[in-house]
């Protein structure tokens, strides 16, 4: 039996660019180049490693995004994924994480999966809740924020490093997992990989293909609505504590007024 691994990836504005919002307060995709979210590269890497360890596995990368999101899929395919699914529909524009998870869940059900691998968060929205939402919608176990991941038989196993403890977790397949940036460096696409990516299948799906009504998703179907955005205020000069024997007290008082202690 082929182990079917699906990796959810997101096309995001380059975090090193000058990111902003469009007139409708959604992400401005015109001003800044987009790319595969760096945190999702770790998910692709882990999926590829499991696939390489397995006798028979197939890695499908799945994204929900505009036309240019094919660049993110292309990158994942050039890293070594076998095929891609691109859910693209004008009515998806403005979907929040709740709506996106609904679309992804339908796409994953249609594609089929034994294991869904996600990054720990996107580098633009940085919510980090999508894996949990997906698991709930797909009605499968979730094992999130893993720094190590493996598939052994019918089990997915992983290690979650917390602040005070490390947990060793496992769940029966099918399951949804997310991996952190500590899980292992993502590979760089090789020339062969890049050339091969061109020939790999990319399935295009729209909302009709997934039996989703337009008003369930997009700006209309989202639970969150952005009312206004404001640029972060410029950093002001810090407070300088002059130590005249009571420096420690002054410092503590300052931290207390800022509610740090």
């Amino acid at each position, binding site marked *: 039996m082929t182990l079917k691994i699906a990796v959810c990836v997101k096309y995001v504005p380059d975090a090193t660019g000058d990111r902003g919002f469009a007139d409708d307060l959604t992400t401005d995709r015109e001003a800044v180049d987009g790319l595969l979210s760096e945190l999702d590269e770790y998910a692709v890497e882990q999926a590829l490693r499991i696939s390489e360890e397995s006798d028979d596995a197939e890695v499908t990368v799945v994204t929900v995004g505009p036309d240019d999101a094919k660049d993110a899929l292309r990158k994942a395919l*050039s890293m070594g994924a076998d095929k891609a699914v691109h859910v693209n529909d004008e009515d998806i524009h403005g979907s929040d994480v709740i709506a996106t998870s609904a679309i992804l869940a339908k796409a994953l059900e249609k594609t089929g999966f034994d294991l869904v691998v996600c990054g720990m968060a996107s580098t633009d929205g940085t919510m980090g809740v999508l894996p949990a939402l997906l698991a709930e919608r797909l009605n499968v176990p979730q094992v999130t924020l893993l720094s190590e991941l493996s598939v052994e038989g019918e089990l997915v196993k992983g290690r979650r490093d917390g602040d005070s403890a490390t947990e060793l977790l496992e769940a029966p397949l099918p399951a949804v997992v997310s991996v952190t940036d500590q899980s292992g460096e993502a590979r*760089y696409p*090789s*020339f062969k990989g890049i050339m091969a990516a061109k020939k790999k299948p990319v399935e295009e799906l729209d909302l009709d293909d997934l039996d989703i009504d337009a008003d369930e998703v997009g700006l209309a179907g989202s639970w969150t609505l952005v009312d206004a955005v404001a640029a972060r205020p410029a950093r002001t000069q810090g407070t300088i504590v002059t130590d005249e024997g009571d420096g420690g007290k002054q410092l503590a008082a300052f931290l207390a007024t800022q509610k740090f202690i």
Partner: protein
Amino acid sequence: MGKDFDLYRPSEEHDMLRESVRALAEAKIAPFAAAVDEEGRFPQEALDALVANDLHAVHVPEAYGGAGADALATVIVIEEVARVCGSSSLIPAVNKLGSLPVILSGSEELKAKYLGPLAKGDAMFSYALSEPDAGSDAAGMKTRAVRDGDFWILNGVKRWITNAGESEYYTVMAVTDPEKRSKGISAFVVEKSDEGVSFGAPEKKLGIKGSPTREVYFDNVRIPADRMIGAEGTGFATAMKTLDHTRVTIAAQAIGIAQGALDYAKGYVKERKQFGKPIADFQGVQFMLADMAMKLEAARQLTYAAAAKSERVDGDLTFFGAAAKCFASDVAMEVTIDAVQLLGGYGYTRDYPVERMMRDAKITQIYEGTNQVQRIVMARNLP
């Protein structure tokens, strides 16, 4: 007008390759470039990173286990590595230079035997043509190969051999018939482990200090006759044909080094403030940057055109290879000198990378034929 007009631009795959190599080079090669230069040590980190990502010898055809990259893709790999570290860019560049004689003229057996380990990253390949008294006049070489039954016995000295001692394999040109001058020269594959092969002390150089340059000595080196590349007496022709292709890779190195210097200077002039504003606001500085970018882009276009000709083996490749190498290396020298100038006193210190780039650029005007020799080649092959 339309965005899908595909002339005069690399393909999407070539752009993706650049993106991939740039990310790798910045993360895995750039952090060691200063130390490699300072300590004059081989850039092992770069070799490891290039091998791990199958970028150390992308030109090797797929039939022999390689990535099968075309000449433009190979140029892009070399260019992007050179952008952060000139010494490291000699890994993919010299792997192509050393092995191209085998690819162009070698028997199937030689190709199968030597290209596989090169493609896998188990061995590097160097090129041994120059000698102490035979540089520009390479045909005046003295290294001799004498037939002995099913073997050839080599004696002589090769000088200025890049990656000597690090490479497992060497393409060596040697005289097999002294009467015939250039038509009496044959090419051989010599292995580092062949008895009688030894290496001189590393040269103390101005630049590319991380890439070992040493003499290679052949003291009664006895190699099987099937190590000859092509027929007897064709070695010099193979050597020259090789250079037609690989001069394009030197041009790639030159534009990479120049791009690294320009990128650094561009960032610096926006940060550096004098008279109350960034020096980038001064027209004198802007004009310098404009000239640097203009020359560099012209060099890049010529190099890419030459790379395409190398891949197609066009009739005018000899002119284009020489022109690209000569022009790009002269531009690299000018651009890196100007980058040092833009950084002023800081540019003159080893705390900033542009002086290293300036020193590294100089060699591109000298090796694989000095730029004076390139002009001779161009003049003899005018389009």
